């Protein structure tokens, strides 16, 4: 089952020999990552995803420059698409939809990056400790992760977010907590697998310290599954942020978010249906793009079924 991951770098077999021939002697050390890179570049679906991701990040970063109008209402409510000066029209209180869409990318990317950063840092500490040191500490960490796993992801995130008070940072924290148990399990099982390897036994027999062992031997083998999980977590976090904001538990009112735009579109669905479309398309494209990158990374890193234990 998915619990047993082979270390990606080691699993890379000599069958890739032709690729190796093209690598200059000086770069032999970088070979496995180069092969991963090559495989990724030749995966058109993953590359399409990557292009969209890059565009999204740039949109978020340069939102103030790209937005055609200010975020304030322009006093021309409910304009349809293609209206002069308002390419995507305006919403019920006269805010430019394209501007909101662009600033919404900011909220989305902010939450996604914060979620992935918090979740992976916490999970790395917990997963490495649990897998490498084991013992009573590992036992406690594992039981706590099992306990967190029993809560439906959105239910827990909603409860935490609502009790802490609706804000983008609190929403990110709540969504991050949901991701931690799945990531810890992936990291832990990877560490357990690496611990059985001959090179770890060899290092231990020559008296390598725990600290060095973790840094030089265990960590590098944990990186690739974590990268894959992180990419997939981005997509999920974007959906979760939209969901929380839709329910009014994400951003606070003046801030734009795709989830809030969906909410506005939902509320006026019976009168006009257009305002629902731009945020819906943006959410679908963003999640799809991150998923394609995640799938591409997984395939390039030489593994097939890693997401079984994902959240």
């Amino acid at each position, binding site marked *: 089952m998915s619990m047993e991951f082979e270390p990606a770098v080691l699993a890379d077999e000599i069958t890739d020999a032709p690729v190796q021939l093209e690598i200059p002697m000086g770069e032999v050390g970088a070979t496995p990552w180069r092969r991963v890179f090559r495989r990724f570049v030749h995966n058109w679906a993953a590359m399409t995803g990557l292009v969209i991701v890059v565009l999204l990040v740039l949109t978020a970063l340069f939102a103030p420059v790209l937005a055609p109008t200010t975020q304030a209402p322009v006093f021309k409510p409910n304009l349809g698409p293609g209206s002069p000066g308002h390419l995507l029209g305006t919403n019920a209180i006269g805010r430019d939809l394209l501007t909101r869409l662009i600033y919404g990318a900011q909220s989305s990317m902010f939450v996604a990056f914060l979620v992935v950063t918090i979740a992976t840092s916490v999970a790395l500490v917990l997963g490495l400790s649990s897998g490498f040191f084991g013992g009573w500490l590992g036992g406690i960490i594992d039981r706590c992760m099992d306990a967190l796993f029993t809560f439906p992801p959105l239910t827990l995130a909603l409860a935490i977010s609502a009790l802490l008070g609706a804000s983008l940072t609190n929403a990110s924290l709540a969504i991050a907590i949901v991701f931690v148990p799945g990531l810890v399990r992936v990291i832990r099982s990877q560490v357990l697998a690496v611990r059985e390897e001959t090179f770890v036994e060899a290092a231990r027999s020559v008296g390598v310290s725990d600290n060095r062992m973790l840094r030089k031997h265990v960590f590098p083998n944990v990186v690739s599954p974590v990268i894959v999980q992180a990419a997939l977590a981005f997509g999920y976090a974007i959906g979760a942020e939209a*969901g929380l904001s839709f329910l009014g538990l994400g951003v606070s009112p003046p801030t734009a978010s795709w989830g809030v735009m969906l909410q506005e579109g939902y509320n006026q669905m019976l009168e006009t249906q257009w305002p629902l479309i731009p945020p819906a398309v943006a959410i679908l494209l963003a999640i799809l793009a991150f998923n394609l990158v995640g799938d591409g990374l997984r395939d390039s890193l030489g593994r097939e079924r890693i997401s079984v234990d994902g959240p």
Partner: protein
Amino acid sequence: MGAYIARRVLALIPLLIIVSFIVFSLSQLLPGDPARVIAGGQKATPEGIAKAREELHLNKPFIQQYGIWLGNAARGDLGTSFFDHETVAQSIAQRFPVTLSLALGALVLTILIGLPLGILAAVRQGSFVDRMVTASSSVALAMPDFWLGMILLLIFAVNLQVLPSRGYIPLTDSPAGWATHLYLPWIAMGVPGGAGLARQVRGAMIDALEQDYVRTAESKGLRRRLVVFKHALKNASLAPVTVLGIGFAYMLGGSVIIEQIFTLNGMGRYFYLALFNKDLPVIQGVVLLSALIFVVLNLAVDIFYAYLNPKVRLG
């Protein structure tokens, strides 16, 4: 088998203690004083607050409060809502049929979509069908259920007006009305679920079809159909069944946004309203119950699997 079940049930005790502790600790996140809320908010008198504090055991140490709460919860007493003053257990019991209807239908649809597509893609690995299944599951997996729900609502309820957009009719009142009110939410949850299942089944089946016993069965001259369904599928079912069990448990915990969009008065909406009122007993009650449902279903899946596979039971 009995020993295996006993071992699994015993292992649940520490888990349930940690789960209940996390749920109880949610009270620590609540800003402000629950006693003041109970006593009437702004116009609360100091005596009223003191009385509420006494009733909620808030003047006792944290651990003791947890003990009292856990003891009550174990007897099925999840407390009383701060707002409508009905017991949480009763309110949940009233709303559970809605959530159960939603989750059961979504589960059936998930299996109906995911299982055949996953098997088909695995049996014809690399073919056009396989590529279509993989590509469409990628797109379906990028649709959050509430997203799909809203699009379906837009198409079928608002534009075509062939299905109702909101509300719930109990099965006992009108089976047809029950189903027509649930078609859209079922599809919204079943399509992404089915896409996930199809991927799971495909991966597991491809692994199983490469095993020696499949080659043996085929070289014996068994029909392909028999080999695929009896030998491979049975052995490939562990991961998909586990994932289905998890998904079903999560759905039973209440699909907050779906119930909100389609105005279904289930556990999810009950929870949502409680979140806005900061109605702590309701929040804790629903979260605890959804975790319990997960634990019980997970145990059921494990026992079912141990029953099928002696290696699990004895290992």
